[in-house]
């Protein structure tokens, strides 16, 4: 747990940790390195957040730097904007991504526009973290995936990690970034996997997609909670001798079009996987770019595997029928391989 994390720049052998612990570590490091970093949100202080992402951080850094807010998301994001304008580097936690909605005016009217509308005078080096997505039987309206809404807003960066190691390095990069970054954390991944994560401060570059498994048959484009799903599909396919390339987009905005196009030019086939509702999901943007820039390399339709065009179902016993799984990904792979 965070309180015990040794802060060191050397990469020592350490026990594997979960993604939520990695996030905690990243925030602890950032708070330690830079007095301008503040962390706040509903229940992040004493309680350490509903997922314990900020566990023990208030004890360690004090109530002035890690604090609870009233129950008001527009207020939280708006406060953060003001703090950033005043020279701080705020990290705001919104309890669930579906509760970003009350803050969307602050987000769409200001967070992404401030630099543009002040012609560069003010930047907003702010991070907004929010758990997103399904797969763990959360209550109704706690499993939304609103990344498409954010990635359509100019001036915002949208980052979605898929492992403990990536989460830590990407979050540290997001905190360092001069622009506002949404950091969406797949609830499903918070504790599903443990990984030995480098100690100390390290960053991964934002704005880069990453080939997590190379292959030649089909490119699978995914991010966040869908990466493990695609990896599983790739393993299954590999047993049948089909090598799928899994591309973790990681940063949706600004999008790393080059890596996407390069992959699809090599494989000639693309499957795009996301758990948000299908229509207007962010994967449509990926498809559109491929269809504009790499169509002559395509040997098959671009197929999407997505959540359905319905709200994420609160009917926990059947939610796995909504959220894409390896089986559905493999069915799509077969479709593009005929």
């Amino acid at each position: 747990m965070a309180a015990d994390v040794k802060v060191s720049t050397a990469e020592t052998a350490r026990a594997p940790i979960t993604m939520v612990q990695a996030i905690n570590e990243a925030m602890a490091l950032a708070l330690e390195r830079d007095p301008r970093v503040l962390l706040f949100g509903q229940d992040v202080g004493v309680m350490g957040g509903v997922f314990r992402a900020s566990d023990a951080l208030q004890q360690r850094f004090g109530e002035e730097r890690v604090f609870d807010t009233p129950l008001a998301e527009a207020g939280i994001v708006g406060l953060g904007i003001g703090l950033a304008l005043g020279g701080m580097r705020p990290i705001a936690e919104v309890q669930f991504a579906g509760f970003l909605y009350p803050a969307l005016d602050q987000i769409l009217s200001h967070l992404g526009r401030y630099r543009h509308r002040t012609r560069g005078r003010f930047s907003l080096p702010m991070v907004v973290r929010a758990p997103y997505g399904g797969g763990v039987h959360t209550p109704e309206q706690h499993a939304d995936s609103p990344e498409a809404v954010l990635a359509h807003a100019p001036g915002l960066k949208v980052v979605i990690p898929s492992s403990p190691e990536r989460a830590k390095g990407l979050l540290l990069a997001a905190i360092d970034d001069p622009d506002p970054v949404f950091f969406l954390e797949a609830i499903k991944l918070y504790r599903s996997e443990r990984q030995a994560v480098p100690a100390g401060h390290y960053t991964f570059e934002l704005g880069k997609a990453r080939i997590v498994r190379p292959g030649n048959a089909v490119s699978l484009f995914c991010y966040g909670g869908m990466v493990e799903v695609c990896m599983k599909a790739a393993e299954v396919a590999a047993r049948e001798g089909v090598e799928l390339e899994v591309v973790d987009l990681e940063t949706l905005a600004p999008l790393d079009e080059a890596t996407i196009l390069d992959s699809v030019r090599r494989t000639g086939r693309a499957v795009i996987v996301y758990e948000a509702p299908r229509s207007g999901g962010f994967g449509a943007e990926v498809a559109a770019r491929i269809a504009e820039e790499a169509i002559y390399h395509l040997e098959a339709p671009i197929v999407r595997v997505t959540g359905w065009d319905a709200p994420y179902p609160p009917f926990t016993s059947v939610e796995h029928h909504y959220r894409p799984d390896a089986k559905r990904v493999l069915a799509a792979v077969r479709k593009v391989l005929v």
Partner: protein
Amino acid sequence: MPTLQYVPPSGAEFGELPLTTEELLRGYRATARARFFDERAVTLQRQGRLGVYAPYRGQEAAQVGTTLALEDGDWLVPSYRETAAAITHGLPLSQAILYWRSHPAGWRFPDDVRMLPFYIPIATQMPHAVGLAVAGRHQQERPWVVLAFIGDGGTSEGDFHEALNFAAVYKAPVVFVVQNNGWAISTPTERQMANVRIVDRATGYGVHGVRVDGNDLVATWVAAKEAVARARAGEGPTLLEAMTYRIAPHTTSDDPGRYRDEEESKRRAAEEPLVRLRAALRSLGVLTDEVEAQVQAELEQELKEALEVADAAPDIDPAEIVEHVYAEMGPDQRMAWEALGGR
């Protein structure tokens, strides 16, 4: 203005109660029933027979007393915490069970129960309550009244504010009940707001404000009756702050030991409404061992039957996921529906 209270925590040494014996008994039954359901729900949850559940132990009087003030045709607008209000207002226990089992049938409340669904996104129900109240005025001479619930934490959201203002501007026949239970998950009221008298917000909007001991069923009921009467008479909305305490965890997934002194919680639990109501009614001779036993037996029977109904609910058809998106299924839903094996 002082906090309205008729029966002190001791349940003794109180003056005349402005309720009939029949009402007092009705109030007792409803409160005992609410407590009974909550206790069993927590047990069922532990047994894996309910999903995540939001207990309301200690808040029964705040919910039941206010809801009892509603009359035929009036509407209830609850948050996730208001199962007590819901079952008092007529939601069958089986329905409540199915809801907390995350079964689709649990979301389909019967047409004759005039309540909106449980609300998850905090405070968003507030403007709906206003619109619903205004709608009644368009359709009936004697308007229906809307009783809407929100928590202390919920008052921080913009929707709370906008709704209060709209209600005042349109003189909507609506009663807003703030259950000030001291906590919003781990955040105490003192960190939620600087002035913890939520009722002090009323004047600013030109709304009638009342603060009651939310653990005194007599006070909540009487105050709500007055507020409902005002609303019905066209005198506008009321903000009713019911002072209570969240004895239980936020939900069955929550561990309050992480953020509050459970000794203090135990102390506050002593003020809870059922003990005091029982003591008062016994001292008045309204309540007897016999009545208590009878009520208990009825509740056991009702729950048994409700569980039977709930257990008999059909398995969930995955295709239901994409039903009810539009009145008429759109082409994208149909595609999904077929993929999900819909027939």
